[in-house]
């Protein structure tokens, strides 16, 4: 190839090589260039765009909150000592509050949750009764794993594994694994509904989520073999949801 300038002539003369070698390098380079373009091209486009300036507008929107629970009453299947039964409450929350909301639980009276006449069922499985830790949500609370056949009483926990409970809400919002266990199987931790009538925090969903969030609260019940038979009913358990 020859490029003719006014005073100079630039010449490219290809050095003759065996045919195989000539084909390898152009194909390799084009392939490598294509690979790099596909892998990093979008990043470099963003990188180049990042220098553009922007203007921010601000406005204050008052907070609103919507909270509902799936049912006003939960029932356990007939209970045989040593074989725990479970019941689950589903909580749905939507709020535009920038710092989200928190969920608390309490029972209406200072007597035990489940009773039948003068007979009662313990509110302290494994000896624990829930009081929210005062430290951050990563701190452990008064809760323990449930040992089948050994742990007795009425316990509750918040589900920590992600699953959709409808309307885009997740069961996990603000459920601390330090409080309720790293998983929902053998590591799941339970505690009793507090003996205090003061509501105790069980989840802190401290961010805005446009699609709504929620929690699933699981109650587990087992009794000792000498528990008096009969139908046990509860003092009302209240879920409270307030803006952070």
């Amino acid at each position, binding site marked *: 190839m020859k490029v003719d300038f006014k005073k100079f002539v630039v010449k490219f003369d290809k050095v003759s090589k065996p045919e195989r070698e000539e084909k390898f390098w152009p194909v390799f380079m084009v392939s490598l260039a294509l690979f790099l373009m596909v892998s990093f091209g979008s990043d470099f486009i963003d990188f180049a765009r990042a220098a553009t300036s922007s203007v921010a507008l601000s406005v204050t929107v008052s907070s609103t909150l919507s909270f*509902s*629970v799936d049912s006003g009453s939960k029932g356990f299947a007939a209970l045989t000592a040593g074989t725990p039964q479970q019941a689950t409450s589903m909580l749905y929350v939507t709020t535009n509050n920038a*710092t989200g909301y928190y969920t608390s639980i309490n029972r209406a009276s200072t007597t035990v949750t489940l009773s039948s006449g003068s007979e009662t069922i313990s509110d302290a499985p494994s000896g624990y009764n829930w009081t929210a830790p005062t430290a951050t949500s990563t701190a452990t609370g008064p809760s323990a794993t449930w040992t089948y056949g050994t742990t007795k009483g009425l316990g509750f926990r918040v589900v920590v594994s992600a699953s959709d409970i409808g309307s885009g809400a997740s069961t996990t919002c603000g459920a601390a694994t330090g409080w309720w266990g790293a998983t929902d199987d053998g590591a799941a931790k339970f505690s009793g509904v507090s003996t205090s009538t003061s509501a105790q925090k069980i989840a802190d969903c401290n961010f805005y989520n446009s699609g709504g969030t929620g929690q699933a609260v699981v109650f587990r019940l087992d009794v000792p073999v000498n528990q008096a038979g009969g139908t046990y009913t509860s003092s009302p358990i209240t879920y409270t949801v307030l803006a*952070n």
Partner: protein
Amino acid sequence: MKKNLIFLVFILIFAIFTLANGREFFNVAFANQGFTIFPAKLSIEVGKGSQYNGEINLTNAGDSDIVVLPDVQDILPTSGSSGFNYLPKAPGITTLVDWVQISKKPFALGINETKKIPFTIKIPADASAGSRFAVIFFATGAAGGQLSVSARTGTVVLLTIPGDFKQTGEITNFRGPGFVRDRNPIAFKFDFNNTGTVYFEPKGTIEVTSIFGKKMANIEVAGNVVLPTGMRTIEAVWPKPLWLLGIYKAHLAINVTGKGDIATKNLTFYALPLYPSLGALGIVIVLIMIAFYVKKNFKFTIAKKKSKSTSGQKDKSL
């Protein structure tokens, strides 16, 4: 025959009535129940001897008619933490519960029905300056059954009485990523201790600058309520950072209107964009290979044209 017919009609009417009421009972007991409330949080400043007239919009968000139980309780902060308790009335001095006037009479609310609930907060002339906290609660009535459950929400009232009060705070444990290698959101956290006598919603900014002082981002710190003597861990996120390379400083400043910055803290972090660096390295390798290939396979010559004044020819080979 006629008597039997009347008896049959009576039984039929009784059965329909029972079924209808039974269905209603079933709905109350097992249906979805809850509220939508506006406002969910109310931050107000009311002077001594003055009053505040407000209104709460409460909507039945469940799928059955409900009876609503209103209540007002004090919020009692737990020292050194973000925790607190609700109490029907905090012990000792007069509290916000004493000043909130609202009807506590239970009322019915139909499905999707909205009720405007007026309330008044009257501040005594001899009230001390500072903050008071309360929640105006609304709860569904308990449905009964084996495990009876009710839903409760409310409007959090954060009241400040102006005067001689202390609005101070401390930032501790300001933390962030030590090393950044991609463009994922960067989260900064800090603990804010309210050392004043009024509640705090620590608002401010985290300014990220490069080692050369170039401002990279101004991250807003949203207001989280921290009650007096309380502590709260607050998070601010830089949602989509630029590609960062080098050493960066994050300067956190919490401010109060009219007082400027009342608490500041700095942290340093390092960044190396992994993918762009690999990309750049790949490009350099390709350029070297191209140069090597060209050098090996092509002869590049620049020749000066012959002119009238020049008879010779100079060649320059690369």
